[in-house]
């Protein structure tokens, strides 16, 4: 008996020691092979795909703090915190602003939507419509890419081709047929038909690339080691963690104040906030609504906000066999929603009601004479009764949790408001990924709450109601025709009239209840000045300064 016990004891002891030894061995093996692997995914612009040992650093410089930011001996560094890690640095790879925010510090466009949605010149100094299908651009002269290549009409025409061939931009740039070089600094943008949509196309996607370099490395490698004309150059990219930029000393527009800018991904919201409070980051891009007052109360920090362009609404699907197919029922629902209650409640006052149209004054096609729908539950009940539903009806209402600001809370308020007028909703709260899947699969029936962030032109708002569109929950031929007319009209007054007509149809036969835009909120150290938030959520670092 005692023999067996001691043998068992020996084995047990051995097993434990062995496991510990294995852990240690594994640690050594993996540590030993780390620098090689790290090289592959840490790149430095201009040097191809090799660089310094890139684990997030035993060198200690990963923790630049506010103290260092204001130290005269050290180059100024601003660390910008954000919620997720970008995928690549090729600006035409994605139309999502968060994905291309960093690329846009390196790569510039010809024309852009300014902070409030107006067209502004960037690498194109001026433009003129010279005939129905030709836009003439005069380019900035004397600009070079940071690898020494010149920026001119030839590189611009090449870059327009890159834009037109990028899958991500297909929806926004289809109005443009191509570009022709006229002389060194004159470029013609050609369109297949007369259109007003070539300008938004350029403002969204006309990123400028150094022709020889881009042609040599291709889009994928360019996405790892981009070169541009912009205010900053890529210094180092630790994939999944942070992107370090350093100032372009020869920037044509005027060299920015801040020498180094690092965009750091901190996925956990509370950790992101803590990093701002301790000064580890100087600017936080997506400040959670709930934390705004806490940041405001902190004397070292400031909250910067502006009404954003993300347009929230309640889509009333006409696809499924419910009372919602009847226009009168959808009209009634417009009066059943108390937008102000949503804004004052879950959104803590940091939102603005839409003026009964799915756009803000930042959008081309906006009608300033319209007013937000006034909440009138009695009228809603009356209209439902007139439509033949005096006792209401039952529908399914879907909304995501965790995709938009306070989405689940807003969804609950809407459900309660619908119940007030007798519409009994079965709520389905969806994980953001599932929500997107169902959106694409036309499964978000019967009602759903969502927010979209289209470029500031009415076309990009309304085309999502075209019958053919992948996730159109609405279909009317006359609306489709007007949308097409809108793309083929150059005159701005005529285009405005077309979008007014679409809205008139929507008044009778509404696809959505237009709700509100939320404020985009940023948290920053008070040492940071010169920060103007853009409606597009682009972070324009050029004017930033950090005070001592």
């Amino acid at each position, binding site marked *: 008996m005692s023999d067996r016990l001691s043998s068992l*004891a020996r084995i*047990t002891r051995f097993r*434990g020691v062995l496991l510990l030894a294995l852990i240690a061995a594994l640690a050594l093996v993996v540590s030993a092979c780390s620098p090689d692997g790290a090289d592959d995914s840490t790149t430095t612009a201009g040097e191809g795909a090799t660089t310094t040992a890139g684990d997030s650093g035993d060198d200690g410089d990963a923790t630049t703090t506010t103290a260092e930011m204001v130290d005269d001996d050290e180059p100024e560094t601003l660390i910008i915190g954000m919620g997720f890690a970008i995928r690549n640095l090729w600006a035409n790879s994605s139309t*999502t602003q968060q994905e291309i925010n960093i690329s846009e510090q390196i790569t510039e466009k010809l024309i852009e939507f300014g902070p409030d949605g107006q067209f502004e010149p960037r690498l194109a100094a001026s433009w003129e419509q010279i005939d129905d299908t030709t836009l003439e651009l005069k380019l900035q002269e004397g600009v070079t890419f940071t690898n020494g290549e010149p920026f001119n009409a030839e590189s611009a025409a090449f870059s327009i081709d890159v834009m037109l061939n990028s899958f991500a931009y297909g929806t926004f740039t289809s109005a443009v047929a191509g570009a022709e070089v006229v002389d060194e600094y004159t470029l013609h943008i050609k369109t297949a038909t007369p259109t007003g949509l070539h300008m938004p196309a350029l403002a969204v996607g006309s990123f400028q690339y150094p022709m020889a370099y881009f042609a040599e490395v291709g889009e994928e490698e360019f996405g790892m080691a981009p070169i541009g004309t912009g205010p900053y150059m890529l210094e180092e990219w630790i994939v999944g963690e942070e992107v370090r930029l350093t100032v372009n000393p020869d920037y044509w527009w005027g060299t920015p104040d801040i020498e180094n800018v690092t965009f750091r991904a*901190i*996925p956990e919201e509370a950790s992101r906030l803590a990093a701002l409070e301790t000064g580890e980051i100087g600017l936080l891009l997506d400040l959670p609504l709930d934390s705004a007052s806490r940041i405001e109360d902190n004397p070292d920090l400031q909250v910067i906000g502006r009404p954003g362009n993300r347009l929230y609404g309640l889509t009333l699907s006409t696809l499924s066999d419910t009372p919602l197919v009847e226009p009168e029922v959808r009209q009634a629902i417009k009066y059943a929603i108390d937008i102000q209650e949503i804004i004052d409640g879950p959104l803590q006052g940091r939102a603005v009601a839409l003026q009964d149209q799915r756009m803000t004054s930042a959008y081309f096609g906006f009608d300033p004479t319209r007013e937000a729908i006034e909440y009138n539950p009695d009228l809603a009940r009356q209209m439902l009764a007139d439509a033949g539903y005096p006792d209401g009806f039952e529908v399914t209402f879907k909304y995501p949790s965790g995709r938009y600001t306070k989405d689940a809370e807003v969804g609950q308020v809407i459900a309660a408001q619908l119940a007030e007028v007798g519409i009994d909703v079965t709520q389905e709260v969806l994980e953001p990924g599932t929500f997107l899947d169902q959106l694409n699969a036309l499964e978000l029936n019967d009602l759903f709450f969502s927010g979209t962030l289209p470029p500031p032109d009415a076309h990009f708002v309304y085309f999502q109601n075209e019958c053919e569109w992948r996730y159109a929950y609405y279909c009317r031929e006359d609306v489709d025709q007007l949308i097409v007319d809108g793309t083929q009209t150059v005159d701005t007054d005529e285009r405005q009239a077309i979008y007014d007509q679409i809205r008139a149809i929507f008044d009778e036969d509404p696809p959505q209840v237009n709700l509100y835009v939320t404020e985009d909120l940023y948290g920053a150290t008070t040492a940071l000045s010169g920060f103007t938030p853009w409606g597009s959520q682009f972070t324009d670092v050029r004017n930033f300064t950090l005070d001592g």
Partner: protein
Amino acid sequence: MTRFVLRRIVQTIPTLIGISIAAFLLVRLTGDPAALMLPPEATQEAIDAFNEKFGLDQSLPVQYWKFMSAVLTGDLGTSIRFNIPVWDLFVERMPATVELAAASMSIALLVGLPAGIIAGLKNRSWMDAVIRFFAFLGQAVPGFYLGLMLIVIFAVQLRWLPTGGRGTWQQLILPAITLAAYLIALLVRFTRGAVLDTKRQLHITTARSKGLSSWLILRSHILKNSMIPIITIIGLQVGAVLSGTVVTEVVFNWPGIGRMMVDAIYTRDFPVVQAMVMIVAVIFIVVNLIVDIAYSFFDPRIRRD
């Protein structure tokens, strides 16, 4: 002996195939990567091109066959999100996870063992009560919450330590403590129990009656005999530590494989999730295999079954 080893290796093959199928199918249940990787306004052509590029337009058996045949040639696939080989991502992040796991194991040993011994020796004293209270707390408080509390206290309020990231030894402290908390609690409980058990054994009474000094009894008799189950427990906690890093790494922005896996799951980066599950499974299987083989070396009875 060789036959036993071979048999054990062959036995792991169905396990690995099972894991690969589970990882492959489960990650696909989360939905369509194109819906997350492309903007909502993307055209149907863009979605088709995306699916074709990453082979997602093919049938599941074909996709699985391609995945497995690539794995057998040592190719774990390429991240959809970053367009970088998964193996490179793994090799880059594994040292961070090993560093965190090793640090928290060390802390757990340095704190948990002495505390457990004291509690065991002085059971029913006030010290025992205090230690047991903290052990209870350590096991009850979720790592996520503990991590955030540590950040609030030591980084935001006291400003002693950074909130997260990796690079300096200061950045290692809070995540290591967070991950160690559960282990410490576990160690305290087991050590205390083992010491108590040993203390009551007849040979300890004998040792006392021989007039040995209490220090000698503690060192040569109680500790030596209590260590056996404790060391086993520590060894078996490798899995707990590895899974604990997932939460800890997210809270402290620690660039290890745990955080990478969470990111990959949220963004439906199928190749990364599949490959990471396979790698972790292989590590576990290899460790277990070696332990079993070593067992049989010491105890031939195991070989017979």
